[in-house]
């Protein structure tokens, strides 16, 4: 079954590529708008030979990675503290509910004014967007801690730190990992957005430049690169999640929040 | 009414071949209440799913009223063991019971009548507007039974319906099934792994062997038609019958050496009472 699925999947991918080659070749869609796969592949190879491409890739990954690390650290810390202290949980709930749905792109003009095309612009957007994902999932996870387990730990004389370490953290971890996975995907979207719209250096800006200079195959090649990047991030995050939770009897589903 | 002839079901997948049911032949007459018992894992559920048209047998056939079953037939209703997964949690009790009727081209008033009547029969008229998950396990299984009744089946198949409810609820539900059978004259095939339940409920008990499954014995239950939990279960005849069924199942579990292909099981003590 597994082999069959892999085979079907490969066939699907091949079919998709053939379709993308055939549609412009047959003139169904103009080649000016949608170049055939082979020409995109050519452009991709040219990109790979260009030092500037690798710099752009590095810039994007820096903005993504740095922003993600900041958001994850802040999200976990804030999430644990807020949900462990009942008073904080009660008082912050309404504020979180209000701030979370604010689209991070609303901050674009502010980022432009404050930081121009610097890295900080990217970080502002990336951190704002991914912070909430981690925070919410962490809070959900901590609230899922079994009170009986907590009581048991207390009755055996475990201190606060030991309780957090041995009871709270293991329970919350699956949720935290889900939050990190979602945040990783969102962070890439915002990093590319910042580059595309603000013009911070990176793949996004390279796409904008390719578009304005009518370099259509190059633009598609770069879009494919961002897609592959997103794919690697998704697959990577899922693998890390599964590894880290291999001990867990039930790898939980996503929390609907 | 219901004929099973030479039924055989083999599961094949990922290089493994499992013979769940080897060769089953039996009949259930119209208006009869037959219980099927067998050791756990003997393919009872497989058999029932083949009979209801949910699974296609590898060979052999099932006839309902003389016509071969190829898909789920309209005159048959199924009550599953997992009531929690068989009732639709997004529908209220009333809608759960009504949904199958919507496929039957009945008038709205007739549908309402059937739903109300079925819920009345299982004593759940008050719960019509509730969601299934707001009810206890026993009540949920009552809803599933009401859904089957409203469908007006000729044959009712029940797959270990009370395996997941507590003992007292179970006794109530057993009496409910007997009562409904007597009132409505439906043909019921009731699968269980509980010997007492089989003897208490059935007019006839079919004992299945261990997998690969054949019919080990058919037993007529010569208890009076009027049964109740208090007296029937302590009647000497009840004790005799249940002891007999118990012995048969123990024998079935050990298996007849001729039927075994697995060398490891062959080493088990020779069953003294085995036929």
């Amino acid at each position, binding site marked *: 079954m597994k082999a*069959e699925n892999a085979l*079907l*999947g490969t*066939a699907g991918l091949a079919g998709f590529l053939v379709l993308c080659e055939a549609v412009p070749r047959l003139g169904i869609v103009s080649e000016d708008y*949608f170049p055939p796969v082979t020409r995109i592949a050519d452009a991709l190879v040219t990109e790979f030979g260009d030092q500037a491409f690798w710099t752009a890739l590095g810039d994007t990954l820096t903005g993504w990675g740095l922003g993600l690390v900041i958001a994850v650290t802040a999200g976990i810390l804030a999430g644990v503290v807020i949900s462990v202290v009942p008073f904080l949980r009660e*008082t*912050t709930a*309404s*504020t979180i509910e209000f701030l979370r*749905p*604010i*689209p991070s*792109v*609303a901050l*674009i*003009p*502010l980022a432009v*004014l*404050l930081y121009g095309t610097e890295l900080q612009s990217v970080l502002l957007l990336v951190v704002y967007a991914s912070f909430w994902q981690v925070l919410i999932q962490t809070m959900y996870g901590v609230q899922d801690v079994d009170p009986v387990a907590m009581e048991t730990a207390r009755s055996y004389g475990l201190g606060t730190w030991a309780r957090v370490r041995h009871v709270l953290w293991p329970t919350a971890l699956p949720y935290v990992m889900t939050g990190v996975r979602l945040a990783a*995907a969102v962070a*890439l*979207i915002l990093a590319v*957005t910042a580059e*595309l*719209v603000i013009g911070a250096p990176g793949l*996004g800006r390279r*796409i*904008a430049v*390719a*578009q304005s200079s009518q370099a*259509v195959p190059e*633009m*598609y090649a770069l*879009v494919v690169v*961002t*897609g*592959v*990047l*997103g*794919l690697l991030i998704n697959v990577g995050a899922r693998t890390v999640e599964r590894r880290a939770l291999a001990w867990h009897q039930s790898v939980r589903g*996503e929390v*609907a929040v | 009414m219901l004929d099973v002839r030479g039924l055989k079901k083999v599961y094949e997948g990922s290089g493994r071949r499992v013979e769940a049911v080897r060769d089953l032949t039996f009949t259930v007459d119209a208006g009869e209440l037959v219980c099927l018992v067998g050791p756990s894992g003997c393919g009872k559920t497989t058999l029932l*799913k083949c009979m209801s048209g*949910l699974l296609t047998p590898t060979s052999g056939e099932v006839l309902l009223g003389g016509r071969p079953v190829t898909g*789920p037939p309209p005159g048959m*209703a*199924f009550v*599953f063991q997992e009531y929690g*997964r*068989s009732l*639709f*949690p*997004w*529908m209220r009790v009333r809608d759960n019971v009504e*949904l199958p009727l919507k*496929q039957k081209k009945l008038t709205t008033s007739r549908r309402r009548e059937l739903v109300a009547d079925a819920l009345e029969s299982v004593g759940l008229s008050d719960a019509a507007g509730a*969601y299934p*998950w707001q009810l206890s396990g026993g009540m949920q299984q009552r809803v599933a039974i009401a*859904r089957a009744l409203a*469908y007006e089946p000729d044959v009712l198949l029940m797959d270990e319906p009370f395996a997941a409810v507590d003992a007292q609820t179970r006794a109530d539900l057993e009496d409910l099934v007997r009562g409904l059978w007597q009132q409505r004259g439906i043909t019921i095939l009731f699968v269980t792994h509980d010997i007492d339940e089989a003897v208490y409920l059935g007019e006839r008990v079919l004992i299945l062997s261990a997998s690969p499954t054949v019919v080990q014995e058919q037993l007529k239950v010569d208890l009076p038609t009027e049964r109740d939990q208090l007296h029937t279960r302590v009647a000497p005849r009840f004790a005799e019958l249940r002891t007999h069924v118990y012995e048969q199942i123990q024998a079935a579990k050990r298996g007849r050496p001729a039927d075994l292909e697995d060398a490891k099981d062959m080493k088990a003590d020779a069953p003294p009472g085995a036929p």
Partner: protein
Amino acid sequence: MKRLALQLFFVLALPLLLVTAWWFASDGSTDVYWPPLRTILTTFPDVWTGEQLRADVLPSLLRLLAGYAAAAVVGVALGTVIGSYRRVRAVCEPVLEFLRAVPPPVLVPVIILFAGIGDTMKIAVIASGCVWPILLNTVEGVRAVDSVMTETARSYGITGAARLRHVVLRSASPQIFAGLRQALSIGIILMVISEMFAASNGLGFTIVQFQRNFAIPDMWTGILLLGLLGFVLSVLFRLAERRALGWYHGLRDTSRRSS
């Protein structure tokens, strides 16, 4: 009564504290980028007049609605087909995984090639970004329909359209809503940046205009309005979800209590 007062305190205390802090911290601020909150709030009604709302906010919202609705219809329909057949799923999976992974904003320059810079482009951008979470969640939800439920439906002759409507889609609805929720936030992002990229009206366009003209308090009112919009849309979504998934939340609470 006392409980209610306490609850009100918990809901309002921190927001009030934050706004007050902002008010006083920014009062008398001479930093051009951080105008006093007083100035921003007094500018707000001047900037966002009824006419301005009609000229800028309404077109944005209509485009969002059109793109989102198109994505929902296509995503659920296609997702149901793909989710129902194992082989179709196996064929489509790698391609879908890739398409979903493409960050939606990079579609803006691609779609501009096809659709120019008009409304069509913006609706197409929003739809093509929103469709993936809806599609993939529908596939997942349809695939995971409980086997006992499927068999129940079959044994009672519930097939075809009735099965789809009463069993498959209802059973997948929690997953579908999870997808719709993700899609909503993506849709708002795309609404804004498609307007920042190329437009002559819309919320995103106007905010960027303010920023380019160094109308800083006006820009701040735009940011506030956008934030408010995001909040209101999420509240509306939650209301719709509560209505459609009331049974699901009840079921989940029940099983959580008993476990």
